[in-house]
């Protein structure tokens, strides 16, 4: 297993009840997993915990067999080698596309940085936009730059927090297909978070259905979605 989460417990500081209690979950290498759930179900928080942006109160997280946190250790987000594409992209507004993508390339010399940046722009099809600022780009273009930026340092795992929610529906389909293509080509392990069943079905190798901080079901997309539909219709009956 590439990512292993064991007995994870987490509570937000201003809430009484823990969001996760003894949550265990794992992700396979090279797999595209989708965490599907309503807003407030805890799916984004799970991403933040894996990325190291939140500190769990109990449990452990391993990535590629390295302990990210357990009872004694806590690896800072910058040392985890995990890429995260934020819901509203979080492109640095004071930097050009080029600077944004080069931002995470700390261990390379100038030539290598330039080459890597150009490579990624080609992958996302934005070769002509290197000198633009984020506010000069459309939503779809920003999305692609955010993906390029997250992939640039060659993370072993890349995660997406509601990546399509800010795009109009036509663009959504196009970007989704492109993204799927890129992920398949690079073979990178990835985790998506979404509330949209269609997105989950289209992009995921596996779906994890989450509700109120608990995993309700997981498995191949058709199976999970079929079961949840049956449950729903049963509830109607």
């Amino acid at each position, binding site marked *: 297993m590439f990512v292993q989460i064991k007995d994870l417990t987490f509570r937000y500081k201003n809430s009484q009840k823990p969001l996760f209690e003894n949550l265990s979950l794992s992700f396979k290498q090279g797999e595209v997993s989708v965490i599907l759930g309503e807003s407030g179900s805890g799916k984004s928080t799970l991403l933040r915990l894996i990325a190291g942006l939140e500190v769990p109160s109990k449990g452990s997280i391993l990535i590629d067999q390295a302990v990210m946190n357990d009872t004694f250790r806590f690896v800072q987000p910058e040392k985890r*080698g995990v890429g995260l594409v934020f819901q509203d992209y979080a492109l*640095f507004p*004071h930097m050009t596309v080029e600077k944004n993508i080069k931002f995470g390339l700390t261990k390379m010399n100038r030539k290598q940085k330039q080459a890597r940046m150009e490579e990624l722009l080609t992958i996302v099809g934005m070769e002509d936009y290197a000198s633009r600022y984020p506010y000069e780009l459309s939503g779809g273009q920003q999305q692609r730059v955010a993906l390029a930026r*997250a992939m640039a340092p060659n993370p072993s795992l890349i995660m997406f927090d509601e990546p399509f929610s800010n795009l109009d529906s036509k663009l959504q389909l196009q970007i989704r297909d492109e993204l799927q293509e890129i992920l398949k080509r690079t073979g990178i392990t990835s985790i998506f978070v979404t509330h949209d069943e269609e997105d989950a079905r289209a992009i995921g190798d596996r779906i994890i259905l989450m509700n109120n901080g608990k995993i309700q079901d997981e498995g191949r997309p058709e199976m999970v979605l079929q079961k949840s539909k049956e449950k729903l219709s049963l509830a109607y009956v």
Partner: protein
Amino acid sequence: MYYIRKMRSQFNSWALLSVIFSILILLPALLIMVQLFAESNENWEHIKEYMLKNYIVNSVTLVSFTGLFTVLIGVSAAWLVSAYKVPMHRFFKWGLILPLAIPPYIGAYTYHGILNYTGVIQTSLRNQFGIKVDQKFFDIMNIPGAVFIFTMFLYPYVYIITKSFLENQSSSLIENARLLGKGSFMTFIQVVLPVSRAAIVGGVSLVILEVFNDYGVVKYFGIQTFSTAIFQAWFGMGDIYSAIKLAGTLMFIVVLILILEKVIRGRKQYSYSTSKVRPLQPKELKGWKKFAVLSFFLSLFALAFAIPFIQLLHWVYMTYDVILSAAFADLIWNSVFVAAVGSLLIIMVALIIANFSRLSKGWTGKFFSKITVLGYSIPGAVIAIGVLTLFLFLDQKVISLYEWLGLEPTLVLSLSISMLIFAYVVRFLAVGFNSIESGFDKVGTVFTEASRTLGMSVTKTFFKVDIKMIKGAIAGGFILVFVDILKELPLTLILQPFNFYTLATKTFQYASDERIHEASVSSMVIICISALSIFFLHRVLEKEPK
């Protein structure tokens, strides 16, 4: 285990520096509190027995009446400016803030100069019209006079906060009241006043703190208050213990008032959680109403800014050739130097504490951000006494170190300019901190998080991302602190090194020596720099899209 790990995840140089700075800032206040309960001496017994009651009565009278009048004037001006349109509307909107550029002590001696026997009014009456007036109608060197001065030059605090609240938060409520058939006056009484209570209380508590902080006005007018008593104890009797006791008592009163403020404000913040608020559209006024509002604005602007400003301008014209010299250049250099160094330090400390406070989740961060605000609530003279105690204590340590090393023992720290600058940092940290904190609030933490998942540490992120995204807030904070230090009087008077004067303290010295014409040039420099910063902050920044 969890807490240890959590602490470890948050413990870094940011936390360490924040703790160190916070302790340094707390120290002067703590020293005063500790000494408040120390054994008393003869002087203090005397003060307590015969004078303390007088200080309390005078201070409380000044504070109450100034509070009342600033609310009346500040709130009505804010309401009229935001709800109605009169000629020169755009000018009055920020022009009514301008009196804030005139420190009350400058306003005090200017008005005295206008009204006294040799002043422009009485001279004109005598010479042009042959009228001799009863002096008692023209004497403002008393408590009502001081209330007038404080009200004129401090009402903008209430005005600014209430105005921005009314403009940004209340449009739907006010429009609804109008639709429900309420006239302007009833809308004001039944809707505007209650909903803006929190804003008004916020503004008037700033006014109250300023009045407690004041030394220049009351000293010049010969009114005995806590500030003058602290000066008397320290400079008059050389009695640091009584000064500390007085400072402690005053601090105690201020804390009581701050608690009262929290209670009055309570949970009634009345602010909308949505960001989609429509600004209030001002209504065009016609007929006598237009005339009435216009004359209110005009007379307020005249009394609180134009008249003293023009008078000072005249005095500047009379004296500039005597005053403008190498010595005056030194004065400007001193002022700019301490203000620049102080502001720079404050911005650095504020950045460190604010960044730590926003990134650490839980109570620790909040705790540190509260500490920074402390200094702004405590009157300058009190902070000065606290800082003085601290530095005298440190000097004793240094002296024993010098003796041990076989060197000539001297007072190193308590005679140096570093003591003054340290006190500025304690007093004005809140001003810089608030500006930077609101800058951070606006950008949120998402960019920081993005940077960290891209492999940058907290510190690298701070320099490459955070600091660049809040440039405007940093500049704004710097300007505000700079102007505050430039105007500062009581603290500087107590802590300035021997033969070291700033524009503010020189102004005050001239005025105390009844050389008010000579005081005008340095006053003018202070006023012009303050006015420029007000213009910049309220006019230029307001135009920027938020």
